[in-house]
Every structure is written in structure tokens, then in C-alpha cells.
């Protein structure tokens, strides 16, 4: 009788301890990045590009990487949205949910979702060479678009599947075609989900380094052309951390803080926007 009580107590203690450890690790990661990054963060960091001798500790900032990352993630999210909206609309409006095509498409998206980003990087590299491109913003955008496509599709698909069937049926009974139902009813009903999916993909794209290391290159110049290399924040962190000079390493911490803040901002924004767009949603 008593053994059961002791077992109960011990395991409850272990569970609470594990949960605490996980929460504390998260807190510690954010605290470390803030504590190390904040002292090195300055206006110069976010308004200037690297000047001469930047990597030896002289003047400059990482504006090239901030803009490069925003362009790259923005372009990739846009491209992925253009690709994934037709896919999820087709899966949810035109095709039967149990048809071989929709089952196969959902399964392959599930698999693609788990493919490591370095594999997309390697594939993007092959694609880039096949297309006759050099490491450039365009090659980076194509690669990251492939990486975020399954994330976006799955997120949107999950929301659209939740949409009540009566809504579509009401639309059909009024004589609307499937296309009209898809564009005017389903898309509007799922707008919060679509916005969340796009921002999720954007956040994922902006933080990924392994897929762009082979395809987007790195440069100190601002990204002005699709065909030139572009700097990205994760790579800026990685490269600056690799130097032995303390000032440059501190800038790596500051760049990591900028990146983390951007990502937290995006997830906050997605919550706010999702709430804002729910006014079109029929419950």
C-alpha cells in the first residue's frame, strides 16, 4: 500500500523537475542571448554595413545581413505562398479527401516537412548549377522556398480541413462554382490560418542557415540584385563567431540577439494579425 504512494510521489516529483528543467533551459537560452548581445548592440550595428577592417574590430554593422535575410525570407515566403495556395485549395475544394492524389500529396508534404535543411541546401546547390546560376539571392530564395513550402502547405491545410463543410455547401446551393467558393468563402474563412502559415514560414526562412550557406553566399554589400550574393543574419552570426577577435565575437552575440528579436516579433505579429482577421470568420 505504501509503496504505491511513494512511487506516485517520486514520479510526480520527477515530472515536475523535468518540466522545470525544460522551461529553465528555454529561459536560460533567451537570457544568455540578451545578456551577451545587449552590451554589443548599438545603433551602428543596425544602420551600417561592414566598413574596411570590420572583421578586425573596426567600424560597421550588419545592415547587409539584416536586409539580406528579410529579402531572402520575404521572397521565399511569397514564392512558397504562390505555390502552396493552389495546392491546399485543390486538396480541400476539388479533390476527394480519400483520393489517391490527395493522400499521396499530403504524405509527400509530410515527408518533405521533415527533410533536413542541409539536404535542401545541397539540392538547391545542384539546381543552381543546373540553371547556370552562381551563389546569389535568387538561388537562396529558390532553396528557402523549397524548405518552407511544406511548412506552409501543412499549416494551411490543417486550418482548411477544420472549416465547417456546411459553409461550402451553403455556397454551392446558391449556385456558386467551386472556384468562387474557394476564393470567396474558404479563403476568407481561413484567412487567419493563411496569415499564420505565411509568418511561420517567414520565421523559419529567416532563421535557417544550412540551406543558404551553399546557395546565397555572403557579401558585405547591401543586396541590390537578385543575381548577386546576399548576406544573411544566421551566417553573419556564424562567421563572426569564428574569429578570434573579441570585438567581432561580441558582434556575433549582438547579431544573434537581432535575429532572435526579429523571430519573436514575427511570432507576436502572427498572433495579433490572426486575431485581427478572425472578424471574417464564421463560427
Amino acid at each position, binding site marked *: 500500500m505504501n509503496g504505491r504512494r511513494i512511487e506516485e510521489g517520486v514520479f510526480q516529483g520527477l*515530472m515536475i523537475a523535468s518540466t522545470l528543467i525544460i522551461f529553465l533551459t528555454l529561459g536560460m537560452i533567451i537570457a544568455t542571448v540578451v545578456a551577451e548581445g545587449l552590451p554589443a548592440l548599438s545603433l551602428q550595428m543596425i544602420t551600417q554595413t561592414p566598413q574596411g577592417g570590420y572583421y578586425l574590430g573596426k567600424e560597421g554593422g550588419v545592415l547587409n545581413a539584416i536586409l539580406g535575410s528579410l529579402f531572402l525570407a520575404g521572397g521565399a515566403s511569397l514564392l512558397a505562398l504562390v505555390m502552396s495556395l493552389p495546392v491546399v485549395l485543390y486538396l480541400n475544394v476539388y479533390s476527394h479527401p480519400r483520393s489517391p492524389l490527395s493522400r499521396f*500529396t499530403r504524405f509527400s508534404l509530410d515527408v518533405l516537412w521533415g527533410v*533536413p535543411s542541409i539536404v535542401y541546401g545541397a539540392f538547391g546547390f545542384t539546381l543552381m548549377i543546373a540553371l547556370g546560376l552562381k551563389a546569389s539571392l535568387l538561388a537562396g530564395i529558390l532553396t528557402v522556398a523549397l524548405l518552407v513550402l511544406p511548412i506552409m502547405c501543412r499549416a494551411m491545410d490543417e486550418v482548411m480541413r477544420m472549416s465547417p463543410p456546411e459553409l461550402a455547401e451553403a455556397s454551392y446551393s446558391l449556385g456558386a462554382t467551386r472556384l468562387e467558393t474557394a476564393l470567396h468563402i474558404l479563403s476568407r474563412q481561413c484567412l487567419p490560418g493563411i496569415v499564420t502559415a505565411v509568418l511561420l514560414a517567414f520565421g523559419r526562412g529567416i532563421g535557417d542557415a544550412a540551406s543558404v550557406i*551553399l546557395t546565397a553566399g555572403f557579401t558585405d554589400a547591401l543586396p541590390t540584385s537578385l543575381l548577386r550574393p546576399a548576406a544573411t543574419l544566421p551566417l553573419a552570426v556564424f562567421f563572426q563567431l569564428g574569429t578570434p577577435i573579441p570585438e567581432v565575437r561580441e558582434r556575433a552575440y549582438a547579431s544573434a540577439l537581432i535575429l532572435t528579436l526579429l523571430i519573436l516579433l514575427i*511570432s507576436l505579429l502572427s498572433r495579433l494579425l490572426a486575431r485581427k482577421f478572425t472578424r471574417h470568420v464564421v463560427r
Partner: protein
Amino acid sequence: MISFRLLKDRIARGGMLSVTLSVGVILFLVVAGLLVKSWPILSLKPLSSLLFSSAWRPNHGEFGFLPFLLGTIWVTAVAIVIAVPLCLLSAVYFSEYAPRLIRELSRPLVDVLAGIPSVVYGLWGVLVIVPLINGQIAPFFGSYSTGYCVLAGGAVLAIMIFPVIIHVSVEVFRSVPGEVREASLALGATRFQTVKFVVLRRALPGIIAAVVLGVSRAFGETMAVLMVAGNVPIIPRGIFDPAYPLPALIANNYGEMLSIPLYDSALLFASLVLFVVVIFFIVVSRLILKRIQARIE
């Protein structure tokens, strides 16, 4: 004469279908692309010498991937050993014990952890884990380590797979019907006995799927591991030895790749190996989860 509206509908249907089909073939396109590019090395060397030789001298045309494969397996194993008990205990807590308020917190916790970029995890590993191993943990076990080692890579990876394992296991626990718990409690079992004999037993396949998904994540994770694992191409003999996992090898050699003959082919072969292994894990876990989902419906 069909109306303009119906025509638009037909055109849209065709367009969407073709986009859907092209997304469906991406998977095969990736396999084909990697296979074509790794063909030069596959046609020159037998598969067994590539996978099971430890001679890594690209300048002499020797490409043995064994140290990198074992490096990946070591860090992944350490990550799983650290992550699985912690994640399962806390997933049980979230789904069976926690008061409502804490239960609501599990979702944002998982989201934030999953959203942090891998470079930031890597940076944290360099700043916190590496000095800790170098200064405290390795000396405590009476050995020396620079801190850049299997354990550091495994620890950082463990944190990175927390969200996957917790998220999937909580969902799986939630799929166990409430009546079975009530039946067990009504028979006089304690809450933990209910968890142990009823919930965990029902949820076992799902837990396996969660762990397998975690393994697939850890296997392919690149940047964080690249930053803390040490990157020495030898076979690690213990957790305080440096390792050079496969993804780190691919990412680290983007510079030399095109100047040494066969090097690019070798690296794309490495990506292909990674891809095949990860896909195997994902397909296994998905099949298990699909079966569970079918049972609920």
C-alpha cells in the same frame, strides 16, 4: 456553349491540379538531383568502401564516410538519451497532472523553442555548454576535453528536439480516451499506476513515433552541431571526444568543394545518405501515427 463562370472554374481546376502535381514530384526531383550528382563517385567506388572506410583524404581521392556516419550516430544517440526521459516525463505532466494554467503554457513553450534558429542554439552551446564541459563535467569524470565534443553536440541537439517529442507525445496522450483512465482510477489505482499501466501502454506506438521523429530531426540538424561538436574527422571513442557529423561536413566544405576532383560528388553523396536515412525514419513514424489517427476516427 458553357458559361464564362464554368470556364473559369475549369481553367482554375486544371491550373491548381498541375501545381499540386508538381509539388508532389518535388520529393522525386530531390532524389534524382542528388543521385545524378553523386553518380561520378558511386560509379568509381563501391558503396561499401564509401560507407565503411575511415580513410578521409579528399586530396588523394579517398573518401571514407565512416567517421562522419559514426559521429552523427554518436551525437544523435546522446541527444536521444538526454531528451527522451525529460520529454516523456514532462509530456505526462502536461497531459495528466498539470493544472489548466500550466497546460495552456505548454503550447507557447513548444512554439518558442521550435522557433529559435539553430545558430542561436549553437551560440548558446558555445557560450554555456562548451565551457561547462571543459571546466566542470570532463574534469569531474577525470578526463580532459576542449568542450567541443560529442556531449556538447548531443546536449544542444537534445534541446532542439524537445519541441517535436513533447508536441507529438502530448497529442498522443490526448488521444487516449478518458473512460479508460476513469475505469482504472475506479478500480483503485493511483494516478501514476493509471499512467503506467493504462495510458503509457495505449500510447506506446505513438511514443515510439515521437522518438523516431526526434531522431530524424537530430540526424539532419546542421548549424548548431557544426558549431559545438569539434569537427575532427576521426571516429569518436567516448562522449568527450570531438565528432564530425555528416551534416556539418557538408556545410563546412562549401569553399573547397569545387576545387578538388570528386569532392562535390562526395558531398552530394553524403546529402543523399542523409536524405535516405531521414526519409526512412519519417515514413516509419508517419505510418505509426496514421494508424493511431485511424483508430481514433
